[in-house]
C-alpha cells in the first residue's frame, strides 16, 4: 500500500498505543500532520485518552515527565513539536535522558521517544528551521532517527515506541510529510542501525539522510539521464547509531562520495561521514569527497534567501559532477 510519511507517523502512533498499554503520550499536537494523517490518528487519541496527557507549553517538564515515566517502567512519547523547540527541553533530553543509564551503572533505562518536526520548512526563519540531528549526534546515550521515507517513518517510529530500550529522538522533516512510499503491511523492518541502499550504482555514492534522501534520488536520476553516470544512494536512516560500514562498503565499490546533508556544514552529519571516509576509506577514494550542506548562517526568512541555502537536487548534481570530474587530481595512497 502507498502511504505518505505523515500517514506513516500517524499509523505508528495509533498502532503503538493499541499494542502496548504502557505507552503514554505527552502532548498530541503533532504539528504538520495533514488531514489524512490526522484522520488516522484521531480514533486512537479518543480510544486511549486516559494515556494521553494534555500538555501545557512546558517542554522541560514534559520531556522530564516522559523520562521519569519511562524510568519507572512505562514507555513514553513526548511531542516536542517543531524541531527547534527541543532546545527548550535540552537540559532533560541531553543531560538526563541520555545519561541515566550510564550514570547509574546500568540500573535505570529511559525508553522514551521525543518526537520532533525539524528542518528547513520554507519560511520558518531562523527560529523554526533547525536541523537538530548533528547536535544530538554529540550526545552518547541518545538514539537519533532520521527517516528519509514513509516506510521508515512508520517502521522506525513504531520500533522506538514499542521496542527500543534507549531514549530516542525521532526527527521528521516538515517537507517530507507529503512524500509517499510503498509499505508492505507486516513486512519486517530493516533493523535500526542499518543504512539502506535506496538505489544501486557504480560511479558515485551519495550519502543522504532525512530530506536529502528524495533529493539525492532525484539527483541520481538526473546524473544518469543527463550525464550517463551510475549513482548509488545510501540512506543513513539514523545518525546514532551510525552505519559506517554500509557507507564504507558503498564507497569501496564506487570510489567517489558526495554527502548531502541539511545540517550546517561545520561539525554536521556530513562532516562526520567525511571524517569516517578519511580515516577508514581513503584507499577507496578516487577523488576528494564533497559535502553538499548548509552554509554556516542562520536560516533567513525571505524565500529567495532561504533557497540560496537549501540543499537541492541541483546542488547535489553540481557537487557530484565536481567529484566525478576530479579523479585525476587525487593522489592515490601507495
Amino acid at each position: 500500500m502507498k502511504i505518505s510519511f505523515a500517514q506513516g507517523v500517524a499509523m505508528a502512533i495509533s498502532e503503538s498505543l493499541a499494542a502496548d498499554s504502557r505507552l503514554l503520550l505527552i502532548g498530541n499536537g503533532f504539528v504538520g500532520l495533514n488531514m489524512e494523517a490526522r484522520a488516522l490518528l484521531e480514533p486512537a487519541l479518543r480510544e486511549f485518552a486516559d494515556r494521553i496527557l494534555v500538555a501545557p507549553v512546558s517542554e522541560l517538564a514534559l520531556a522530564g515527565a516522559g523520562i521519569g515515566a519511562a524510568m519507572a517502567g512505562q514507555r513514553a512519547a513526548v511531542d516536542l513539536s517543531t524541531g527547534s523547540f527541543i532546545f527548550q527541553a535540552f537540559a532533560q533530553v541531553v543531560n538526563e535522558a541520555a545519561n541515566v543509564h550510564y550514570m547509574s551503572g546500568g540500573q535505570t533505562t529511559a525508553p522514551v521517544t521525543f518526537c520532533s518536526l525539524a528542518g528547513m520548512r520554507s519560511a520558518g526563519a531562523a527560529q523554526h528551521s533547525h536541523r537538530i540531528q548533528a547536535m544530538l549526534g554529540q550526545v552518547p546515550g541518545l538514539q537519533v532517527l532520521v527517516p528519509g521515507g514513509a516506510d521508515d517513518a512508520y517502521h522506525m517510529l513504531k520500533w522506538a515506541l514499542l521496542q527500543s530500550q534507549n531514549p530516542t529522538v525521532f526527527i521528521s522533516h516538515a517537507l517530507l510529510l507529503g512524500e509517499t512510499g510503498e509499505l508492505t503491511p507486516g513486512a519486517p523492518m530493516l533493523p535500526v542501525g542499518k543504512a539502506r541502499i535506496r538505489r544501486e550504482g557504480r560511479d558515485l555514492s551519495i550519502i543522504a539522510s532525512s530530506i536529502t534522501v528524495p533529493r539525492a534520488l532525484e539527483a541520481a536520476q538526473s546524473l544518469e539521464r543527463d550525464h550517463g553516470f551510475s549513482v548509488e544512494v545510501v540512506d543513513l536512516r539514523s545518525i546514532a547509531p551510525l552505519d559506517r560500514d554500509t557507507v564504507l562498503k558503498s564507497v569501496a565499490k564506487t570510489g567517489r562520495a558526495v554527502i548531502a546533508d541539511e545540517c550546517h556544514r561545520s561539525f554536521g552529519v556530513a562532516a562526520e561521514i567525511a571524517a569516517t571516509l578519511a580515516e577508514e576509506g581513503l584507499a577507496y577514494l578516487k577523488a576528494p569527497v564533497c559535502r553538499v550542506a548548509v552554509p554556516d548562517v542562520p536560516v533567513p526568512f525571505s524565500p529567495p534567501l532561504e533557497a540560496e541555502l537549501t540543499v537541492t537536487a541541483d546542488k547535489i548534481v553540481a557537487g557530484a559532477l565536481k567529484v566525478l570530474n576530479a579523479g585525476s587530481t587525487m593522489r592515490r595512497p601507495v
Partner: protein
Amino acid sequence: MTDLALDKLYGFYEQLWRIRLFEGHVQRLAAKGEVPGFPHLSTGQEAVAVGVCAHLAANDYVFSSHRAHGHVLAKGSDPYATFAEIIGRQDGLCRGRGGSMHLVDAANGVMGATGVVAGNLSLAAGAAWAAQALGDGRIAVVFFGDGATGAGVFHETLNLASLWQLPLLFVCENNGYAEFTSREEHSKVAKVSAFAAPYHLPAETIDGNDVLVVNAAAAAAVRSIRSGAGPRLLECMTYRMAGHYVGDAQRYRSKEELAAMKEKDPIDRLRAHLTQRGEPAAELEAIEKRVASEVQAAVERARQAARPDPATVLDYVYSQPLSTTAEA
C-alpha cells in the same frame, strides 16, 4: 508527636547519626584528596531525609539533588556501596559512573540524584504518573533545595503535578542558600511554600531541623497522597552546616550565623527530647558509638575496594546495543 514509640525515636537517632558520621568521613577524606570531584554535604539537614523517608516503602520512588547522600542513606541504601560510589569504586552503587552527585539505587527506589539544580523535578512527576497508571500504590518524592525554585522547570512541574493530580511529594530543603547566595538576595518570595498555592497544591512550611516535626508532617502528607488526593509540598526550614561543597570557604556567612545555627542541630534536639523523656545518656552514647564503628567499617572497606577497570569505560551507554556492522 511526643507519643511516638520509643523504638521509632531511637531509630531516628541512629539514622541521624549515620548520615552525620558518613558526611564527616566524606569531608575528612575529601580534604585529604581521596574523593574525586566536588561532593556536597547534607550535614545539618539530616532530619529532613530521616523524617520523610520514615514514611516510604522500599519501592516508593525517591529523586534527589546534588546534595543526596542523606536521602540515599535514609532510604536504606548500603553505606558501603554508597561510599564506594562517592570515591569512584567498582563496587559503588553506580559502578563508579555516577559519583556523589548522581547516586542511584534503583532496587531500593532511589531513582537518581541529579547534578543539575531542578533537573530531577519533572522526572519525579513522570515516575509518579507511572505509579498512578500502574495503580501499585507507590508514590514519588522529590528532594530539592530552595535554589531550584529559581528554575522555570520547578513551576512547570508544579503545574503538571497539579494538572495531572500526581502522587508526588515535593520536599524543599530550604537551607537559606542557593549555592552561595542567600534567599533574600535571590528572591522576593520568602517562603517556597507560597509558590504552591497558585497551582492549588497544599503546602506547608515546617521546622526541618526537628525530626519529630518532619516526621509528623511527612506522615500526613504521604497519607493524603496515597489516598489519591494529589500532590503536596513540604518546605523544610533547615541549615546547611557545611559549605555548598567541600572546600567552600563560605565567605558569605558570618561566624555569628554559624554559631546560632549550631543551636538548631537536629541531633542535639532529638537527644534533648529523649533525655527529657528519661532515656539514659549512656544508651544514647552507645548508639552513637555503634553507628560510628559501622560507618567507619563501611568507609574503610570502600577505601580498599577496587577501582573500575578502564577497559569497561564504554559499558552502559546503551541498554540495548544496536549493531551497525554490515552483514557479510
